[in-house]
């Protein structure tokens, strides 16, 4: 019985943290912070799949979440901030 209550507590904690992370990810104005929170969200999703007895899905989420999503978003952010920065400088020159 003890084990079941520990597992239930585990589930509740994972669920609440998932919701909290999702909210923080979306409401974050700092894009880099949002991406790092999203990477953490993916990690926690893998734990949720494990608890739902879906190890295949957990494995897919782990490989994609750890290996691809983070790299894709970080790479896109780097290219994005480079071009917006250029735009800011252009504005500065025009305004001066």
């Amino acid at each position, binding site marked *: 019985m003890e084990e079941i209550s520990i597992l239930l507590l585990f589930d509740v904690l994972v669920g609440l943290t998932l919701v909290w992370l999702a909210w923080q990810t979306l409401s974050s*104005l*700092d*894009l*880099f912070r949002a991406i790092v929170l999203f990477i953490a969200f993916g990690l926690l999703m893998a734990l949720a799949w494990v608890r739902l007895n879906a*190890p*295949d899905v*957990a*494995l*897919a989420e782990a*490989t*994609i979440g*750890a*290996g*691809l999503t983070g*790299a*894709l978003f970080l*790479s896109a*952010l780097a*290219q994005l*901030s*480079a*071009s917006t920065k250029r735009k800011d400088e*252009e504005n500065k020159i025009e305004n001066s």
Partner: protein
Amino acid sequence: MRKIKLKILEKKPSLFTRLTLGILMFLLAASLAYAVWSLPTQALGLSAEVAKNVEMSGVSNPVTAVLLNYRSYDTLLELGVLLLALFGVWSLGGVSANKSSFVNPILDFLSRFLVPVFILFSGYLLWVGGFAPGGAFQAGAVLAAAGVLLFLNDWQLERKYSGFSLRFVLVLGLVLFVAIGFGFVFLDRVFLEYPPQLAGGLILLIEAAATLSIGISLAALFLGRDPSVKSDSKIDTGVHK
């Protein structure tokens, strides 16, 4: 190091908008929760059918059996979707990533060490997929991670491989899947149905090809541009700066 502020300038939506949308979303969530609550707490779904036919499918992992045998249409079309996404990215031209001439010795060593391990692990996941969690998608994703690691290290595909060879590997999974699917149509079977005694080997063959295609496609998606197009030729965006 200088503290980096990457804040975006976005006006906060008005309180009225946020409140209205929040209430709407709450109502949506509440009605969905009610719908889930009213479902029976015990439902076997299709698990009995899956378990009954798993001996005939050629593999003992039920998820692989569903993916590559019972519902192989899904997997086939999914390979097509992956290719379409890649064509979409390529057609956008892509921004050529800045290449730094500086080679970091630590990263260089790390990638030399890790990439073979990734490839080995990808093969392991492919093999283990027949009887335990694993399979083509997971193996392909690990292979793609190896590719991402190489691209992050400013590795470039040699030009002689970036044309036909690359495209051949990209479509290999899809073509082999369709070919095997159609192959047995002439032997009085429906499309994508395999004879039970051959199913195990055929699934492994298809999965191996699919792993290669998925891995290379995902890595190419990360690269974001067609490697056979010269990286210095910038595509005209049509906007005069």
